[in-house]
């Protein structure tokens, strides 16, 4: 089991490295000169050069790449005494714990990955992301919770009452609202219907963030505002979970060991809970977990519709202003979350299904 877990973790790190490489080269070939973004169109040549020198964008691409990796790594190499060097251990950039020195010029340190600064606001990208990430994560998390808890239960019933009106009804719901309708459309309909038309009964507002400001109370957390966006974001996964759980359940219920369980004298409820569920959950768990990061990325539209101040909101903003460090940082964060959740899921999967472990 330890070997299984460590292999999964090493795999995850390798994937992340690949992602970093892709992000770097992708954004490197994008048009747009950082110096003009920072200084504006009418900047003097000297200032432009100075910016290039500071960012290291006048160096060869491969040097830039290594520099980027060094910035992102937890353990990195720096020149602590050379102020002009690109890898000068600048306290305004990094916060670190020194590990050891190599021949007096180089120092190896343990540090928090440095995502660089926004071209526009000059704030640390990590700071921006840390501010906005929780909002998106909470949104995605609740969307997943809604989708999986409701979806699994509805899916089980659809399988047990196969071909009934209930089964067909859930299928129509899933295909129309979940698959066919785009999320911004569903979002607009939900906001209009529950946040405006039926607002008297639901008490919900069509837009709003997790943190609300009030003239008398100051900042407060509003979970009420979470309901509509989380539902909107969760509708697609919900309908996939229903369908997935239904087919997985139908498949498991026709297995020989279910017949064995029946022959033991178990009731249908006992068979479903003790024998079928654990077997049927595997494909669903894999699917759900893979979506978490995907949902955070997908939250971009929903956040825009509901004016939810999350990471997606920030990315859309940054993209329109060509603020590359923010976009790169956000992409990297999505990728990291993706890899981490997948790794955790693989390990959980190993616990759920003993057959996976032996490979």
């Amino acid at each position, binding site marked *: 089991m330890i070997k299984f877990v460590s*292999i999964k973790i*090493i795999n995850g790190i390798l994937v992340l490295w690949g992602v970093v490489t892709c992000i770097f080269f992708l954004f490197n070939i994008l048009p747009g000169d950082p110096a003009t973004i920072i200084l504006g169109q009418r900047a003097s040549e000297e200032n432009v050069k100075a910016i290039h020198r500071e960012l290291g964008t006048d160096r060869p691409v491969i040097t830039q790449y290594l520099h980027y990796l060094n910035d992102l790594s937890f353990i990195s190499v720096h020149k602590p005494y050379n102020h002009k060097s690109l890898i000068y251990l600048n306290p305004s950039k990094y916060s670190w714990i020194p590990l050891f020195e190599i021949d007096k010029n180089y120092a190896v340190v343990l540090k928090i990955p440095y995502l660089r600064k926004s071209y526009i606001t000059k704030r640390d990208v990590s700071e921006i992301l840390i501010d906005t990430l929780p909002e998106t994560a909470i949104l995605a998390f609740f969307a997943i919770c809604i989708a999986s808890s409701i979806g699994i239960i509805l899916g089980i019933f659809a399988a047990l009452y196969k071909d009934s009106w209930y089964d067909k009804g859930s299928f129509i719901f899933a295909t129309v609202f979940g698959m066919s309708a785009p999320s911004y459309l569903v979002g607009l309909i939900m906001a209009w219907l529950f946040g405006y038309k039926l607002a008297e009964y639901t008490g919900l507002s069509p837009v709003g963030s997790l943190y609300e400001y009030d003239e008398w109370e100051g900042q407060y957390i509003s979970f009420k505002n979470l309901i509509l966006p989380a539902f909107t974001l969760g509708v697609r996964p919900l309908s996939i979970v229903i369908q997935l759980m239904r087919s997985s359940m139908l498949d498991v219920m026709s*297995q*020989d*060991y279910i*017949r*064995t*369980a*029946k*022959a*033991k*004298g*178990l*009731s249908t409820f*006992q068979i479903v809970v*003790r*024998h079928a569920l*654990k*077997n049927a959950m595997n494909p669903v768990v894999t699917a759900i977990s893979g979506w978490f990061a995907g949902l955070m990325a997908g939250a971009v539209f929903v956040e825009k519709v509901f004016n939810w101040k999350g990471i997606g909101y920030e990315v859309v903003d940054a993209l329109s202003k060509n603020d590359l460090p923010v976009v790169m940082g956000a992409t990297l964060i999505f990728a990291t979350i993706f890899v981490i959740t997948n790794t955790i899921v693989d390990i959980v999967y190993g616990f*759920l*299904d*003993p*057959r996976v472990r*032996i490979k």
Partner: protein
Amino acid sequence: MQEKNPILEVCGLCTDFWVDGKYNRATENVDFKLYEGETLGIVGESGSGKSVSSLSVMGLIPIPPGRITSGKILYYSRSGVQMDLTKISENWYRKIRGDEISMIFQEPMTSLNPVMKCGNQVVESLRIHKNITYQEAKKITLDLFEQVQLPEPEITFNKYPHQLSGGQKQRVMIAMAISCNPRILIADEPTTALDVTVQKTILELLKSLQKTYRMGIIFISHDLGVISELADRVVVMYKGNVVETGHVWDIFNRPRHPYTKSLIACRPPLDKYLRKLPVVSDFMNLSETRQTDPEKEDFKIIFQNEENVITPEERKKELQKLISGERILEVKNLVVKFPRTKTILGKVTSWITAVDDVSFDVYEGETLGLVGESGCGKTTLGRAILRLVEASSGDILYRKGNILKMTETEFRPLRKKIQIIFQDPYSSLNPRLMIGDALVEPMKVHQIGRNYAERKDYVMNLLKKVGLLEEHFYRYPHEFSGGQRQRICIARALVLNPEFLICDESVSALDVSVQAQVLNLLNDLKKEFKLTIIFISHDLGVVKFMSNRMVVMNKGRIEEMGDADEIYNKPKTEYTRKLIDAIPKGDFTNSYFAVS
């Protein structure tokens, strides 16, 4: 036995199944009784309704598509109450299932829950019916594991099904079935998916358990040989009807129904060699279920006369002639290894040796039998000859050319000449391809025949030769029975006009009665196409019937090799003796014919 009280009476049971828009009769007026402490064998081919009858006793027929249209299943419960199982409520039924009536299924591989520890599956069964704690149930389970002879009960208790062998899984199933000390145990083909040697131990286990627990056993099988090892009385089923019921001795010695007679006759006899195995159609008109065809009554004469028996002298002569002929295939010091564990970088750290330094020759026109338990390397050996698996070292010479040293282009013409027939006729045909097209395809690949019409003519001709009809050209695999599919697979192998055929467990998945037909077919085709055959099987009886010489394999090595008859009569090694002992003979198998 007859004075005892019956514990189960099935009277006039009729069941239907909804297939293709209409109800098809699965069983019709099935009657049988089970007495206390007796073993009742139900025998019949697949589709004869034997499984349906037993499942209806358990109340496990899926409704829909199934339904019970009429009849009664009377059960005399532990407390002495008589009840009709077709009428009782589901709640009541659940109390009986697993407690008073329990069942063992055919597929031990899939009948256990893969994500639950073996021990807990038995514990669960105990705790549903008995008011006991987990610890008490665990203690009983460990006792049961001891009784069914599972190795190290404490460790096996915590193992998952995939960590056990097929035989061990079936033992867990048995432990589960007998856990509540049932009155009736239904065993539905419990050994069909297992090796002969494992089958023997399971049958012995069931016998001894019955003595201890005094339960009534219903034992279902397609193989009268297996039934004869265990049963007191036998019910013979054919196309949903019970055609004969009687004491096992009577069934074997005075069979009345032609179908019973054919079942007894169609297993390859062990004491003599027949040119042709008797099949069901030799005994009865297949469209009629109940009547004996008077013209076919004299089958004894057909099959037991001297013309059908190959004398030992004749066999010797034939073998001599073959051995003096040319060697078509020479296998020299062949080794096949598979990686067992790998490091993260893919470097192999340990190997499993599937075929270990094996050498033998095959002469032109002979049938070489390859026999051994599953996992002995016989299948790997067969595939290595076709280069379907990579050999690690050694040589394989085909007509003096070294197959292992050829490039893929050099080997391609040989692929046409060497063909293989696989074990499972269900999964080796593409379900979306018409039979005809599946057969024409290899001809097109190897550029045999000038155009489609010519190839189609050839294929239709071939279909007739393997005992199918021309119109089957346009059908799809699911429309055929297991035996017919295996015929299709044979036709596919023969379509390229090969000279060398490898049959890998080609009849193991078939009913005994169908197996006889396919074996006869193979022998006929061998003559017609002048084939050389390597016949691989775990069943020594079948291998002996088919082959001139025989190779016995164990753990990747050759145990012994030589004249098939000699090996059977004078086995040199302990392992071969074990294989021969494991063949279900029954004490009566030949007595019916011995009388004549």
